[in-house]
């Protein structure tokens, strides 16, 4: 076989010379310009119906030898409308490309090694350009930057601390057992988006690592490096990613260098974090203290008041203005053989709580090189150092650490500040002094991360009607996450028990993947093009998580060895997967585009690691407007599309095993049954999605509508279910649950004004999703002995007494349930009724640019347990008490117990930018900007932020609030220099 390929290669190389001489009849040449008369570099000129073509050089000029019989050429470039011209036309020497308002020519990466023009897509693939991503304001994290910009995407910030803690959910819940997070792919690297707990729960008493409020590792990506993001929301679009794609796929492409003069940009942002909303504290006077507590407490209040020592603890803890600075350097350039992109970024952010913050230092080099006409390689490498000071927020149990918890039970008239000897007073009403914790306790993480990808494109073989390409891409995501938690031995809750806590985590992640794909394009004379691809994909993820803990600390020491009791915990995880891909695409003259394909996957996470599972796909797009030139005159686009696909998801690591846990008594080691019962025969859960839609564009594509409706059935959903605990096990993992998500997504794109002075683009997105559990055990099998009764999924909330998720056949999976007179009853739903994103970009007076993004979420409930705690601690402010009382009456009350309506309208992003064209030899341009994030929020929700999740980003867990890190708003001033 090797010999064959070598011969093929030689033939191919020989042919490209032969072709030029034998088939060339005539030559055309010219310049391609945009409407501003700037040369368009890299535009492609292709002879229609062949693979013969070229691209424009740095000056926008091209020369093309036409093969015999050539009639038309197609001129295209991303961002411009494609033109088809006859070779006999006289205007080939100067071609002006018009703006493509609808981005129809934009190429969307949908297959593993192929892309499709947006106008030919059969799915609603959402994409975000770097302009939309980072053009308005300075962005903290990539996932946070997507808020409100895409249909069908629900984003929840579980933790308001700088550095993220964000859950992205595409088209509803797709998995219960593990990650509902999509697969993230950056330049072909399957990157980790883990939330890595620091072990602070061993000091705070939080129930699980998910309650520690860790950041998710997408935070490491520098948003400025990103060229585009494509979001494959459902199985119909993501089927080619098989068993990793049940929750969708986010494909990120980073910036590449452009041939031409080396361009340098420097950007500097400075800004401030401040609390998004203050909830407030109950305003006591002496009489109300007496009424709420007793005479002694009233006397203490009076004394503190007389001494001027009544403070506002909320303001004291959450009232900081955190300074933000972000410096970015971008260098791009190259020649026709080699291009490079260098992106450097230093971001440093202080939080609204003293001693919290996030810093990210990122350096990226993207290098592309053409060895010859046949072979090109690319290497992208990115080193990131990030660190965060997360401090302590969220749920806990008697740890005395979480600020919100402490504040709920603390009284503003007690003294919390240290005396002249540095001794902090004990909190008389809770197990920790928040000022002590803020000043002395530590919960830090640091990541050192390498993202590397290498790709090779080899044009094995080319004739004028076919081409065979080979694409190889490998990715490596390696990082070490280090965590450090320190709670001094003098912390109130530690005294007499653990006497201080140190937790040091060393977590090594190593994700490796590669794929090798052959792609064959075949053009026929009757305008039917075939694209065939087949290949393999392999991934190997290794994780080694080690947490060392020391208690019984030697006073003042922060070293693991300086304490009386040491414990080590290690968790090793390994995942290996292998897949085979085949896909055939048929394109009839851009009129009818049909695709069929599928993927075979096997995974070490399945019971039988060598059993292949098949995930098929098929789609059809019909561009009606292309059939009839009369119609084309009125409508720029009229496309009907339908797509079907399947994806899967394997159980999370460890689900196959039932183990024995080690334990100790008085120095005698022992083991005891692990309450999580594994299942050695697991198969992946499977999504089956049917999506159909219509895309319409008219008035020169200045008005466009994209409408999609999807039905996604998740079959054999993997889920943990509480077992009768009398069995000795608490949970088992099963897969006899079916879930249906249905939803509508509308995107309306407008360009109301487009002239020399004002250019206004507007996107209005509207979407909703509805879920329904269609089978639990046996469908409608309530009397069947094999049926599974409705149940509370383990670990998602705090029991039916307070409100929790509850899985019942026929009910939405996002419902919040309470025990009402002993009967589980649905009292809320975390799913929004609908969401609307309204994005506007206005360019005016040639150098001014104004952008804003409004995000409206209607409906969707949150269980506000922060209020439960402040109620008990007597710290719920009067206006909240009144509001709750007013809105708790009646069947359609906004507030039912602690379940509150969490609708909101938020000005997510707003920015005003001004470009000063210096035009000097050295300095080309100066850019100035003023922008803000989350500037205005209108909501009736009574706590900090209707976006919240005390259990982190996984599984069902959104919409449960327990004393989170309050969200912040940011205001930025930006200065940019282009050289």
């Amino acid at each position, binding site marked *: 076989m090797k010999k064959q390929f070598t011969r093929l290669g030689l033939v191919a190389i020989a042919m490209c010379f032969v072709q030029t001489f034998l088939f060339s009849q005539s030559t055309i040449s010219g310049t391609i310009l945009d409407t501003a008369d700037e040369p368009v570099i890299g535009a492609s000129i292709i002879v229609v119906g062949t693979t013969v073509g070229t691209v424009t050089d740095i000056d926008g000029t091209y020369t093309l030898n036409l093969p015999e019989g050539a009639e038309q050429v197609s001129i295209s470039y991303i961002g411009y409308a494609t033109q088809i011209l006859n070779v006999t036309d006289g205007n080939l020497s100067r071609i002006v490309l018009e703006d493509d308002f609808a981005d129809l020519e934009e190429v969307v990466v949908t297959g593993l090694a192929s892309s499709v023009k947006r106008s030919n897509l059969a799915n609603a693939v959402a994409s975000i350009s770097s302009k939309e991503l980072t053009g308005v304001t300075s962005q903290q994290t990539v996932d946070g930057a997507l808020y409100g910009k895409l249909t069908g995407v629900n984003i929840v910030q579980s933790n308001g601390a700088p550095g993220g803690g964000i859950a992205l959910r595409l088209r509803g819940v797709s998995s219960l057992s593990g990650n509902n997070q999509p697969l993230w792919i950056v330049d072909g690297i399957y990157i980790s988006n883990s939330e890595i707990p620091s072990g602070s729960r061993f000091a705070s008493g939080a129930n699980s690592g998910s309650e520690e409020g860790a950041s998710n590792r997408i935070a490491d990506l520098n948003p400025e490096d990103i060229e585009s993001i494509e979001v494959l929301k459902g199985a119909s679009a993501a089927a080619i990613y098989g068993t990793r794609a049940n929750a969708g796929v986010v494909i990120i492409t980073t910036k590449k260098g452009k041939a031409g003069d080396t361009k340098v940009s420097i950007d500097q942002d400075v800004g401030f974090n401040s609390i998004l909303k203050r909830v407030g504290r109950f305003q006591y006077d002496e009489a109300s203290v007496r009424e709420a507590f007793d005479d002694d407490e009233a006397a203490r209040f009076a004394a503190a008041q007389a001494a001027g020592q009544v403070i506002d603890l909320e303001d004291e803890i959450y009232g900081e203005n955190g300074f933000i600075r972000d410096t970015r350097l971008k260098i791009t350039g190259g020649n026709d053989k080699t291009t490079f992109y260098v992106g450097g970024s230093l971001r440093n952010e202080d939080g609204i709580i003293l001693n919290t913050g996030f810093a990210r230092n990122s350096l990226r080099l993207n290098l592309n090189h053409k060895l010859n006409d046949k072979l090109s390689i690319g290497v992208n490498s990115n080193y990131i150092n990030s660190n965060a000071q997360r401090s302590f927020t969220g749920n806990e149990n008697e740890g005395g650490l979480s600020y919100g918890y402490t504040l709920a039970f603390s009284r503003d008239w007690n003294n919390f500040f240290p005396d002249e000897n540095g001794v902090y007073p004990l909190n008389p009403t809770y197990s920790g002094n928040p000022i002590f914790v803020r000043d002395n306790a530590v919960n830090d993480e640091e990541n050192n991360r390498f993202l590397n990808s290498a790709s090779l494109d080899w044009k094995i073989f080319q004739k004028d009607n076919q081409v065979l390409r080979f694409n190889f891409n490998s990715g490596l995501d390696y990082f070490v996450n280090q965590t450090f938690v320190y709670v001094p031995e003098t912390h109130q809750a530690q005294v007499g028990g653990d006497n201080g806590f140190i937790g040091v985590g060393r977590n090594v992640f190593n994700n490796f993947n590669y794929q090798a794909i052959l792609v064959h394009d075949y053009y026929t004379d009757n305008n039917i093009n075939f694209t065939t691809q087949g290949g393999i994909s392999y991934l190997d993820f290794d994780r080694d998580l080690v947490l060392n803990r020391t208690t019984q600390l030697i006073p003042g020491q922060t070293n693991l060895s300086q304490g009386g009791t040491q414990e080590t915990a290690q968790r090793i995880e390994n995942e290996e997967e292998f897949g085979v891909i085949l896909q055939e695409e048929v394109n009839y003259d851009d009129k009818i585009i049909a695709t069929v394909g599928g993927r075979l996957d096997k995974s070490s996470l399945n019971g039988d690691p060598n059993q292949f599972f098949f995930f098929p796909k098929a789609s059809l797009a019909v561009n009606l407007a292309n059939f009839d030139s009369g119609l084309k005159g009125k409508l720029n686009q009229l496309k009907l599309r339908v797509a079907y696909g399947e994806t899967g998801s394997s159980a999370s690591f460890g689900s196959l095993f039932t183990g024995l846990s080690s334990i100790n008594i008085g120095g005698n080691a*022992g083991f005891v049954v692990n309450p999580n019962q594994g299942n050695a025969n697991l198969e992946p859960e499977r999504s089956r999605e049917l999506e159909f839609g219509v895309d319409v564009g008219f008035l020169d594509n200045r008005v466009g509508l994209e409408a999609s409706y999807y039905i996604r059935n998740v079959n054999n959903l993997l889920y943990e279910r509480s077992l009768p605990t009398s069995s000795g096990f608490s949970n088992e993992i099963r897969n006899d649950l079916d879930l249906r998500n249905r939803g509508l997504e509308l995107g309306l794109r407008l360009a109301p004004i487009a002239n020399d002075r004002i250019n206004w683009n507007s996107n209005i997105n509207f979407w909703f999703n509805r879920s329904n559990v269609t089978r639990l055990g046996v469908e409608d099998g309530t009397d069947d002995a094999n049926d599974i009764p409705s149940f509370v999924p383990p670990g998602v909330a705090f029991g039916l007494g307070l409100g929790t998720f509850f899985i019942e056949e026929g009910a939405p999976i996002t419902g919040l349930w309470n025990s009402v007179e002993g009967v589980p009853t649905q009292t809320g739903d975390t799913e929004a009724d609908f969401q609307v994103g309204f994005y506007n970009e206005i360019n005016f007076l040639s150098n001014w640019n104004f952008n804003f993004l409004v995000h409206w979420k209607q409906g969707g409930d949150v269980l506000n347990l922060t209020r439960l705690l402040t109620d008990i601690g007597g710290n719920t402010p009067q206006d909240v008490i009144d509001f709750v009382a007013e809105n708790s009456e009646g069947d359609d009350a906004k507030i039912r117990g602690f379940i509150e309506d969490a609708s909101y309208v938020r000005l997510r992003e707003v920015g005003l930018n001004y470009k000063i064209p210096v035009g000097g030899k050295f300095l080309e341009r100066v850019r100035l900007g003023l922008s803000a994030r989350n500037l205005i929020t209108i909501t009736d929700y009574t706590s900090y932020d209707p976006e919240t999740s005390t259990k982190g980003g996984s599984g069902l867990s959104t919409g449960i609030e327990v004393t989170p890190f309050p969200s912040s708003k940011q205001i930025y001033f930006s200065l940019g220099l282009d050289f």
Partner: protein
Amino acid sequence: MNKILSYICICVIMVFASCTIDEQIDPNAPSINSVAENATLQELNLLVNGIESSMRNGVDVLANATGSIARELYIFDADPRNTLDLLGKEGAQLDNNTFYLTAAYNTRYRVVKTANILLDALDNTSSVSAAEDAGYRGFAKTIQALMLSQVLDYLGTNGLRFDVADPENLGPFLSEADGRQAILNLLDEALGDLNGSSFAFGLSSGFAGFDTPSTFATFNRAIAARVAARAGDYSAAISHISSSFFDINGDFSNGPKHVFSLSSGDLQNPAFKQGGQNGDQWIVHNRFIENGVSGDARLSKFRQRLDPTSQDDLNGTHETALYATNLSPIDIVRNEELMFILAESRMNTGDPQGAVEVLNIIRNNHGIGDYMGGTGMDDLINEWLFQKSYSFWGEGQLMFDLRKYGQLNDAFLPIDRPGDLIHTQFPIPLSENQ
């Protein structure tokens, strides 16, 4: 084109053949099946240690949840449900899916399961002699019976799921009476195993003096006496006491204990609360302070706080001083309890004088002199309950004693906040699907 497709096919077939993923073995823990066949002596002993160790999980909940209901104490900590649900605030019912139930219930059955794994392992190994085999069985069944008796006390008339040997086919819930009988039968079975057996395993220092088959059997009988007394079978209780480690002249605190250490993987005493600590404290119900008899040594269990404390409209001046340090042991069953069982059994079998004799030993031991009250049944019940409430404050007994004598209600216990309820038993956990 056909050529190219065939190349693709060849590539694909080659790759199919070459990539095999290894069978998966848990890299993080031994499998539950590792002891199912040919378990070694070391593995059996690891299970014994696991059983003894995990018995301690949840003992604080058994004590403080029942203690809240019996108005012995309030839990002032970060979880609102401790003063809300447990005290029936504004009529709040006990939830069947909340930690005060599940933490107690799940931990008991986890021990039972581990003991069943030990019993299964014994069925399938030849690494121990017949006498050693019987020793393991006697140990495992005694501990199972103790765990199940704690569950039954918790659930009361809701009954007990006794047969849990097969997780796929759990036995039915037995009535309270049948459950008690099943537990007693299991204790008798265990006693039969212990007779003539030998221990090939060691226990922690908490079982010092109870770590041979014959001495462990006296612990088995003490548990049998407790269960029989709860069942109201007082003649049986008296008989079990006589075979237990009971000693009327002996040290009150004698008996096996849960011990704690700072070793890696070990536990600290979860019922210990640092003096002066706020936000995680057991506050003594004021009635214990107000009704305390001066000179009663047991009042040292209550430490006066510098400042009274209040939470959720509840107040207290004293906090727990039941355990001196975070390593203080917790009694599993002690001589003093057997004295109370003896006194109770005598007063219920027509021997009031005999009961008073024992009560006086208890009273004098704690420094409050002889009993001077009436010897009618009601008087004796009240005296017995009063003494037991001080002797076993914060140890998870009073709720069940009050319930047995019809005093777990607002006629006998104070209502601290208007609208509070006094619960009498815990519901069956939701996950049991009953």
